[in-house]
C-alpha cells in the first residue's frame, strides 16, 4: 500500500505540467504575447523560402517564354532570307 501511494505521488509530481516541459521554447501559455510573437516569426520564416523560390521560378518562366518567342521570331526571319536568295531564285 505504501509503495502504491509513493508511486502515485512520484507519478503525479513527474507529470505535472511545469516539470514535464518537453519543448524548450514552450514557456508561455496559449494566449500569451510571447507565444504570438514566436508564431508570427516562425510563420514568416516558413513562408520566406517559398515566396523567394516562387518569385525566382516565376521570373525564370517569364524569361523562358520570352526567349522562346524571340527565338521563333528570329527563326522565321532567317528562314525567309535563306529561301528567297537571289542565287536560288535564278536556279
Amino acid at each position, binding site marked *: 500500500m505504501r509503495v502504491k501511494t509513493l508511486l502515485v505521488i512520484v507519478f503525479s509530481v513527474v507529470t505535472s505540467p511545469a516539470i514535464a516541459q518537453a519543448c524548450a521554447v514552450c514557456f508561455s501559455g496559449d494566449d500569451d504575447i510571447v507565444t504570438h510573437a514566436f508564431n508570427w516569426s516562425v510563420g*514568416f520564416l516558413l513562408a520566406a523560402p517559398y515566396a523567394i523560390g516562387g518569385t525566382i521560378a516565376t521570373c525564370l518562366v517569364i524569361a523562358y517564354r520570352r526567349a522562346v518567342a524571340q527565338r521563333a521570331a528570329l527563326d522565321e526571319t532567317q528562314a525567309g532570307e535563306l529561301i528567297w536568295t537571289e542565287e*536560288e531564285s535564278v536556279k
Partner: protein
Amino acid sequence: MAKSSAARKLTEIVSPPQRRRSAFGGGPPTPPVRPNLPILNNSRLAVVMLLASELMFFAGLIGAFLVFRLSATVWPPPFQPRLPLGVTGVNSLILLFSALTMHWAVSASRTGLASKLVRQLFFTLLLGALFLVIQGYEWTRLIHFGLTTSSSVYGGLFYALIGAHGAHVFGGLVWLLIVYWQARHGRFTKTDFVGVQTARMYWTFVVALWPVLYGLVYLY
C-alpha cells in the same frame, strides 16, 4: 567511319551553304541549325542566387526582430532614444531616387548612349553615398544619446538590421564604382552591358529592402 560520321552529325552545326546543296532537288532548303541559347545570362543567374541567399539572411534578422517586437508590451523600451523619423524618411526618398537613376543608366546602355550611362551611374553613386553619410550622421547622434548595441535589445536589433543594410549599401557602392570605372573606359556596348544589369539588380534589391526595414524598425 560510319561511327565518326554519326558523331560529327550530332556535334557539329551544319552551315547554311551545305544545307542548301544537300536539299537541292529534294525539297525546299531548311533553315540553319543553331544551338540553344540560355534563357538567362549566367552572370544574372548568379546574382539571382546571391540575392536569394541575401533575402534569407535578412528574413532571419526580421524574424528575430519580430520575436522581440511582438513580445514587448512597451516599444521602444523606456529610457531609450526615439529614432529620427523625418530625416530618415527624406533619406529613404534619396535612396529610392537612386534606383530611378540606376534604371535610367540601364536604359542608356540599352540605347548605346555611353555619356548618359556614365552620368546616371555617377548620380546613383552620389545618391547612395549621400544616403550612407546621412545614416552615419544619425548613428553618431543616436550613440551620443545612449542607443548602443549593449544598451538594450532595441539597440541591438536596430544596429543589427540597419547596420546589415548599411553594409550592403556600401557593398553596392563599391560594385557601382567598378561599373562606373568600366563605363568610363568604354567597357559596355549597346549589345553587351551585363555588368550594368547585374549592378542594377543588386542595387534594386538594396533599395527595395530599405522601405521594408524603415517601416519595420522606425515606424512599427
